[in-house]
């Protein structure tokens, strides 16, 4: 059982290996080899589709976003910068941006836009973003994050979810929850720090 736990929590080597595999696939994409894109899709298509589906709540929209994400990966593979995060994280950032843009367009609220993947959000992602290659590991990890989120006090959790999954600004969240702006800022900060603590504790 120990090995399973270790595999689930993730040896650093394991995710580095997975990242190396992704980078090989990405280099093939840069060389205009569609097989490389196929490999990336096989490894991360499910995570990209699932994130889009969570944000949009509609399967055919999520399919189109997934298609956009890999189209962008095909066009911009050369711009991927390893120092900013893993290939998996890069794809998920593009997915989030695209899905939220589409979500906002659907609600006819063109004002405001979640930060573009070319900019800040990308830099934020840790270089050691864990491995999503194995579905078993991904499922276990997902459960761990989910549990940590569920353990947060209500307002902290909702504030984080509205920001991450709907791309709402702090002001918009304050309006949605009918809380003062200062309260929302405090809750968001506490929640994210607690989430960090919970995820760190789960590591051996």
């Amino acid at each position: 059982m120990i090995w399973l736990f270790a595999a689930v929590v993730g040896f650093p080597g394991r995710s580095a290996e997975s990242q190396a595999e992704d980078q090989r696939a990405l280099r093939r994409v840069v060389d205009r080899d569609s097989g490389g894109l196929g490999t990336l899709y096989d490894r991360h298509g499910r995570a990209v589709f699932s994130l889009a589906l969570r944000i949009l709540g509609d399967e055919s929209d999520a399919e189109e976003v997934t298609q956009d994400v890999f189209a962008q990966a095909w066009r911009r593979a050369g711009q991927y910068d390893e120092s900013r995060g893993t290939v998996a994280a890069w794809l998920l950032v593009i997915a989030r941006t695209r899905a939220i843009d589409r979500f906002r367009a659907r609600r006819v609220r063109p004002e405001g836009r979640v930060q573009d993947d070319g900019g800040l959000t990308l830099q934020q992602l840790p270089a050691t973003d864990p491995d999503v290659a194995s579905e078993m590991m991904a499922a276990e990890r997902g459960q761990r994050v989910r549990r940590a989120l569920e353990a947060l006090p209500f307002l902290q959790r909702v504030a984080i979810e509205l920001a991450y999954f709907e791309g709402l600004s702090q002001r918009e969240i304050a309006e949605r929850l009918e809380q003062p702006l200062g309260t929302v800022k405090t809750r968001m900060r506490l929640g994210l720090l607690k989430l960090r603590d919970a995820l760190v504790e789960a590591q051996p």
Partner: protein
Amino acid sequence: MTPAHDELRHDAAAYALGVLDPGERAAFETHLAGCAECAAEVREMRRAAASLPHAVPQVSPPPSLRARILREIAPAAPGPPASLVRRERRAPPWWLSVAAMLVIGAGLFAYAQRMQARVSNLEAQLRNAQARAAAADRLTAEARTAAFRAQAAMGVFAAPDVARIDLAGQPVAASARARALWSRQRGMVFTVANLPPLPAGRVYQVWVVTAQAPVSAGLLTPDASGGGSVYYETPVDILPPTAVAVTLEPAGGVPAPTGAMYLVGKPAPL
């Protein structure tokens, strides 16, 4: 530790989640460049933020999506792998292989067809179920907000220490009326009617007035008829309220009241 630090550190979470407005973002980044404490905190928060997509229920996209993506994006597909290229071998008597192939082939073909249909069918069913689960997850998140409010409101109604405060409309909103039910432990339920429509960029803010200072309970955006019912969490260590008031404030609210008073009232025994 600068005044900028005290003010801007509260934006770290929104920065890590990628939802600061461009102006706020520029200000925060300027501060970040010179503040090791904020930089460290942002690094930690990014880590937590990057884990969020993995909390989402995982659903497989339809199998056709892969082919569609590859066809439309990268039409130049590579040839088949070398291992599939047929190799010549010395064959047993021709009639044996033909007979065997016919028998086995017919059987396998029928079997494969059946299995293929079954697998496709099961895959479709599984995907439907997963998609429904994911959609439900999203709805649950929305329902949670509503349920929390309802539950919290019930808690206030039933609180042993509940106090009632009736608020009367002030000259700017003479026909407005409101009632607050407040419990130190459980918060406040605030119900209002006949508030004038909000001007652009403004919001109503509800205050619990104490002997020390007014404490913000929260913001209030009335519905089209100027009514609404809202639940607010209030600090447990608040001094006993001497009044509850509603003022008109800039959108987003303010730490202390600045605008015109629309409603005010003092606690009454239940």
